[in-house]
């Protein structure tokens, strides 16, 4: 029986499909993007959704889809090599295979954003789950107002999608602002945390939606800064991260108050989870 809220397409969502790796791109020293051929079982995905990637014999991890929703048969995932699964995953070459389950979870509110100004705030690899949304915004650029992309990273060497950032700014009618925590003297851009970019933003708060993805502490301070601009909690969407394992709301590892991050998130409208955001034990 299909599980509520899960697009199974008749498949068992717990069974991974083997997907060959079409391409590996090294974004930074420890961040890489895998392009997977999922044409044999491709299904549409919404920007913000994630899949479970299984490195056979090692383990499974949840990873947001970072590629273009217009090409669901070639799934892209941008991954930081930090754990026992993602480190060996970084060693994989073209032609190797991963198991894929999904897509799962909720997406960014594309339709609710129509006609509005949009602020995207990303930190570190948090730009990856926003990238499919940026592709969609670009494809339907006239449907939206002013689009600001604010991106913060630790250092210039940690910037992902460097070429695309320039393209989004120059050719896609979006304002991309980038800042790094620290840099060598040859860096010509902003230095400081991503919240400092919000200090400079001019927007119509009543007609703006903000979406943010990055480390939770960053999002906490981003939300404060957005509230300070006059953007209310119901106009803010966040992508949450917890220990997601089953991805279908059964195992309970990612329970967050009354919600499961995997099933009800990972994208939440912030007013829905605000009461839990400040509870340190969650």
């Amino acid at each position, binding site marked *: 029986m299909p599980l509520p809220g899960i697009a199974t397409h008749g498949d068992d969502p717990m069974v991974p499909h083997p997907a060959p790796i079409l391409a590996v791109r090294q974004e930074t020293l420890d961040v890489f993007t895998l392009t997977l051929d999922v044409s044999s079982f491709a299904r549409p995905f919404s920007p913000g959704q994630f899949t479970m990637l299984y490195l056979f014999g090692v383990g499974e991890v949840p990873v947001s889809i970072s590629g273009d929703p217009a090409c669901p048969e070639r799934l892209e995932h941008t991954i930081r090599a930090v754990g026992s699964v993602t480190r060996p995953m970084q060693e994989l070459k073209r032609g190797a295979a991963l198991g894929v389950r999904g897509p799962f979870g909720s997406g960014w509110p594309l339709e609710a954003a129509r006609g509005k100004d949009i602020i995207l705030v990303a*930190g570190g690899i948090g730009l990856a789950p926003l990238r499919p949304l940026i592709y969609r915004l670009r494809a339907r650029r006239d449907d939206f107002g002013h689009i600001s992309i604010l991106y913060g990273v630790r250092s210039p060497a940690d910037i992902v999608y460097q070429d695309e950032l320039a393209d989004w700014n120059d050719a896609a009618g979006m304002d991309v602002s980038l800042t790094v925590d*620290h840099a060598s*003297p040859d*860096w010509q851009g902003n*230095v*400081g945390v991503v*919240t400092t970019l919000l200090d400079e933003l001019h927007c119509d708060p009543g007609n703006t939606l903000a979406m943010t993805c990055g*480390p939770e*502490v960053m999002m906490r301070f981003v939300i404060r800064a957005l509230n300070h601009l006059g953007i209310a909690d119901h106009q803010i969407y966040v992508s949450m991260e917890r220990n997601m394992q089953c991805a279908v709301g059964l195992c309970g590892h990612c329970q967050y108050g009354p919600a499961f991050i995997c099933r009800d998130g990972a994208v939440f409208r912030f007013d829905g989870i605000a009461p839990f955001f400040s509870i340190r034990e969650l």
Partner: protein
Amino acid sequence: MSDANEIERFIREHPFFEGMADEHIKRLTGCAERVCFPPGTFIFKEGEEARTFFCIQSGRVALEIHAPPKGSVQIDSRKAGDVVGWSWIVVPYRWYCDVRAVEEVCALAFDGACLRGQWDENPRLGYEMYQRFVPLMHRSLQATRLQLLDIYGAK
């Protein structure tokens, strides 16, 4: 139009001075001059006497700390519309970092000794200026705390 009028106009238009009384703006104008620095110039260096603060009109500066053996590290940046420098308010009036022009920078430079003299005559002006500098210091402290957390590192 005289340079003093230009300076006064810039002060009136700058958000840092928003809402300031005419009398105070005129006193500030008397302590300010226009300065420009070519790219690469050190506007001031760590340990030097802090005599000035700058309201940047155009260009960008980098705040740097020399940290051997890494060399100089950019820890912050400021651009047009921003204010640079508060060490001139705080004894012993020494800069705590280097400030270097990344691009050609033009700014209004306010003479700290002149301003402090004005405050002695008119404490209300001093209060007004502290009301403007304290939020800058607060924002900078908050940002520094986040930088210390290294929030974008491995989760």
